[in-house]
């Protein structure tokens, strides 16, 4: 299952870091972050609980980039 979320991130490097961080979260098959459109594309693993996974993603992202926001 694929979903797109609006995000807020200040710099391209930070977006790259968020992408790397999001990809380490369990339940994520692939996450891509576009700094330009301020969007995150997420492909969830089968049977993953979106809300919980996204919470983890936000946590992981906050760790690498304090300023970021994800709307979910």
């Amino acid at each position, binding site marked *: 299952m694929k979903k797109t979320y609006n995000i807020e991130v200040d710099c*391209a490097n930070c977006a790259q870091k968020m992408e790397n961080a999001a990809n380490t979260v369990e339940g994520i098959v692939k996450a*891509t972050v576009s700094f330009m459109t301020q969007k995150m594309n997420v492909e969830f693993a089968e049977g993953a609980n979106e809300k919980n996974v996204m919470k983890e993603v936000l946590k992981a992202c906050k760790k690498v980039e304090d300023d970021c926001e994800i709307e979910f």
Partner: protein
Amino acid sequence: MTKKQKKVLKRIIISAALTFFIALFEHIILGKAGDDYRFPVLGEFFHKYHFLLLLLYLVPYFIIGHDILKKALKGIKNKQVFDENFLMAIATVGALILGAVTCGEEGGYLEGVAVMLFYQIGELFQAVAIGKSRKNISALMDIRPDYANIEDENGNLVQVSPDEVGIGDIIVVKPGEKIPIDGCIVSGSASLDTKALTGESMPREAVEGDDVLSGCVNLSGLIKIKTTKPFGESTVSKILNLVENSSMKKSRSENFIAKFAHYYTPAVCYGALALAVLPPVIILIARGGMPFSEWAVTVLSSWVIRALTFLVISCPCALVISIPLSFFGGIGAASSRGILVKGSNYLEALSETGIIVFDKTGTLTKGVFEVTGIYPAKGEGTYSDRAGNLGEDELLKYAALAENYSDHPISKSLKEAYAKRLSENADNESISEAAEKKDNSDSIDKKTVIEVTDIEEIGGHGLTASVDGKKVAVGNIKLMNKLMLKADADNLPIGTIIYVAIDGMYAGYIVISDVVKENSKRAISELKKSGIRKTVMLTGDLKTVADSVGKELMLDEVKSELLPGDKVDCVEALLSEKRKKEKLAFVGDGINDAPVLSRADIGIAMGAMGSDAAIEAADVVLMDDDPAKISLAMRISRKCLRIVYENIIFALAVKFICLVLGALGIANMWIAIFADVGVMVIAVLNAIRCLNVKD
């Protein structure tokens, strides 16, 4: 500017003002320790309690830099040590400490604050510039309709979210509004602006019964539309999805920079550390017996300054930001002209294209049959010879009227050509009417109703009918043979030949053929000029037809009479002969050529407005069917890539030179700030140029 940016701006202004006054105080009012103090009491006091000066400088420093310091600390806590915040924190704190150690003689305080100040100015500028170009580009692509109008029970118009409209509902689109959902006009007519979809600026007329696509803007007239798709599957949603996801597919250069930054930042940090520690230690050992305090003040401090300068220079922001911005600009520029590029990687590949393979029908030619020549026969025994001169218009008139009730594609082309001539003649007449009413034997009076009776179809031959009392036969050469008439058979133009006989006399023939698009020739020559090595046309059409089109367009190679499967084989063969680093692009209309589109390095689908299959299969989608858009797309991609390389080389070169100068102790903090912020600003401004490509 956003709220956040305004806040930063305020901080910058306050901090800059404070720093200015403190520096003024330090340098003008106090003066240098070596010279006589202007105000000896004050000077001696501050010399003695030097830390007071530091405390003064710390006020603007914290105003401007507190968030950076906080982020750097958080980074260390989260084991993400080496980022720009950390670099800036180390560099500025280092400068301040240095100032304290040397009692401000090296001017460390001012520099520490100034570096932070300029870093923030640079960041702010970057945020504003990027935010602005992001908005510009997004505005180009913004075709998202905000609402749909539906009628409630009382007949009042209500605005609802397009998502809430179901299939088969009636929506109302007023002049000036976007059509939110694909559908079919049930009442009213309008001229539609399709610019957002196709880049085509000529408005299109749509009347009752026409299918209309979402994303078009209604320029005039109220129309009611019965929706045929839900909002999520309408053209506008599909295009938006495609464009928004395009920056997710990253190009090679973007991946390169991401990887580069991954190694670069830690490498620079360790380099700086080595620069700060190794040479002083070596000097200490070599000189032997140098007093430690003297060593710390003279040798160590100068190398620490070099190391800090080194750190400031090394910031990778310019590269990391300008490259995705360039690609985004390129994709935005393309989509505003009706060229949808599905990813930065395809934009990159487009610039490397060496071979372009075209499908013929629908791509280089219009794919609809048109009357391309009317040849009334003049020789002996013909209608003209015996029954009076027969003009082109009249020959067409008889043929079209005889075919009036037939649905065959050829009859359709004949009727269309006839209708076109009628309206042209009507125009001419109205002009000449003003001057003088001229008797024109060729002109067709459309007021008279011409009777068409006794239509008889002869399978595989054509038909005969009685038009205006004359017996007309329209068909192929077999029909003429059957009627035992001698017809022109040699030196015929290329295309389908329709023979006409009137009252048992051969009257001439009409040529119907697929016409080459107006822009095809220009498109091919432009492509060649822009460095395409080879142009190939593949078609299932007859060799004679294909060769004549190929010659007209000056294509390098033409392969005709191919079955759909053969096209894949041809493309495979061409793929194997392409040079290293060269890319092959296939251009088709998306009908029947999905396998080829996906086999080629870059699949370009044309005239894809509303065709889902083509949008799915292709990497680059041209919304209208203008072949000149291909060379435009290539120009955009070339320009974009050139800018990307310019930025990479420029930024790396400046950084490298400054790094060397910094390590040698030649570059000071001011040069370092230019190397960081200045380069970034120039790179961002350069990247924004991607948006402007001439048609």
